[in-house]
């Protein structure tokens, strides 16, 4: 039975599919990864330095894929650039193009370029063939890597990161705003939505970088810097506490307020959303990782035990945050505006907005990240020493 009770005609089929679930999930990873990178750059948290470059590349890889779910959902990708040509300033969705472009070009690409400029110049002199050509283009014809030039890069990079933090907030706060500002939908309409989205973004981004850092080190057969991993996990724990508290504030507020939509939404949470919201999002995806991370903070555990807990908690966190996006996007479309009926979301598999494209779009950033890591290795000075030695020899 696809529907229960009374539904208005335009409510029976969901308009926003799993791809619209994926979109805030991907942008959240971008914003979170960038905030983690800024910890080192702006807030001078030296311990997380080994993840700095990886966090920036992760943010870029996911940001490049973030608009693709929207393109697939909307169709006609050839028309999408028109939002730049004839911007509709009264539409928040239409303004996304500018938020996206600002964040991509004025923040992320610029910061990565400045941070990697020394490496790019070195690589343009030590590589051959197409790679050399690529690096030479990336140098923009300037091979000045004197101390003064690098000091300028460092200062400008710092300024860009400072601008980047509110930009990352804007990017993901915007996504929360899109839902929070829909006053016709009581499941979405709350001013807390952008804030909750933002903190959940930080949680997911930090967890993703933590997992990727440990995975890449494992693939490279290099040990992960345990001090770094511990510090990142500590920030993940703090962010999670704030995120969970905010979600609980929202929940308590809704329960106490008990407006006309409450009974209908409460029924939905106890029936159609029980598995995805109560079990996956809250219990498995939030409470369990918080307990696990708290355990690493209070108990004396061995290095290997801590790392295993971080991996397990990180995976649960990503599943939990994805479930949160799912419950917001899909949950907000399952009940009738009449509060008298409920519908069901049927996800296709190999359709334009089905499970298969969603899986492809989730894996694609990892593939892009792999390419980026090959082109711009995020490893520390010591590990790139042979390259520097080769330059010195030349």
């Amino acid at each position, binding site marked *: 039975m696809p529907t229960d009770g009374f539904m208005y*005609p335009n409510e029976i089929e969901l308009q926003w599919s799993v791809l619209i679930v994926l979109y805030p999930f991907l942008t959240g990873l971008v914003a979170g990864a960038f905030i983690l990178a800024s910890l080192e750059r702006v807030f001078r948290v030296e311990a997380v330095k080994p993840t700095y470059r990886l966090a920036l590349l992760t943010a870029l890889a996911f940001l490049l894929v973030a608009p693709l779910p929207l393109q697939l959902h909307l169709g006609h990708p050839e028309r999408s650039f028109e939002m730049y040509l*004839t911007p509709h300033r009264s539409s928040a969705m239409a303004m996304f193009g500018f938020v996206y472009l600002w964040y991509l070009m004025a923040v992320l690409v610029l910061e990565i370029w400045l941070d990697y*400029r020394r490496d790019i110049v070195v690589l343009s002199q030590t590589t051959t063939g197409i790679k050399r050509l690529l690096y030479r283009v990336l140098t*923009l014809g300037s091979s000045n890597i004197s101390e003064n030039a690098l000091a300028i890069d460092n200062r400008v990079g710092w300024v860009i990161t400072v601008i980047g933090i509110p930009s990352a907030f804007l990017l993901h706060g915007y996504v929360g705003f899109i839902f929070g500002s829909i006053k016709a939908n009581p499941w979405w309409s709350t001013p807390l939505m952008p804030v909750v989205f933002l903190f959940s973004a930080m949680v997911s981004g930090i967890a993703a970088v933590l997992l990727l850092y440990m995975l890449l080190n494992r693939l490279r057969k290099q040990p992960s810097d345990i001090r770094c991993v511990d510090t990142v996990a500590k920030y993940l724990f703090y962010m999670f506490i704030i995120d969970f508290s905010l979600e609980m504030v929202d929940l308590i507020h809704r329960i106490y307020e008990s407006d006309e939509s409450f009974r209908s939404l409460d029924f939905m949470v106890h029936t159609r959303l029980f598995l995805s919201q109560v079990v996956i999002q809250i219990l498995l995806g939030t409470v369990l990782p918080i307990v696990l991370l708290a355990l690493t903070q209070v108990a004396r555990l061995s290095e290997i035990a801590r790392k295993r807990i971080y991996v397990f908690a990180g995976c649960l966190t990503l599943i939990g945050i994805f479930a949160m996006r799912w419950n917001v996007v899909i949950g907000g479309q399952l009940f009738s505006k009449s509060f008298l009926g409920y519908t069901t979301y049927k996800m296709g598999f190999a359709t334009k907005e089905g499970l298969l494209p969603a899986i492809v779009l989730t894996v694609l950033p990892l593939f892009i990240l792999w390419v980026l890591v090959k082109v711009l290795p995020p490893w520390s000075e010591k590990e790139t020493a042979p390259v520097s030695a080769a330059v010195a020899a030349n």
Partner: protein
Amino acid sequence: MKLKDAAHLFRLAGVFAAGILIFILVRSYLVPKSFGQYGHFRGDALTEIKAQPISYAGHQACEACHSDVLDLKSKGKHAQVNCEACHGPLAKHADDPGGVTPEKLDTAKLCVRCHEANSAKPKKFPQVASMEHSGGLACNECHTPHSPAIVTEGGKK
């Protein structure tokens, strides 16, 4: 700070400036001249739409010739349904009744557009689960589409 140490930043600024310049040039070429004339759309679109040929004749044109159908229809539940809502746009037929013959309609597909059961429809609106109701049989095998109620001994159905 020496200026030459920041030369690469000027080059970068140059790349950005070139990008913005290209954007402005592309924009001036691609955005139609009449865009924004009346609102956030292409002003010429109105003239183009106005110039399109008329497709619908209107029910008065149909009724001028098909008065027998009008009599039948006006007594039934479909009295307020316009002819072309089911038969489609027929301005060409109205202009040249002998030359352009309207297509025969497949009632098995046509009627369910409105009358297929759906929980969103008001309960008093006539609706059936068509496969259970007729097993894919064309509706006009039993109903007269212009006045669809079936009169039985017990009254209308």
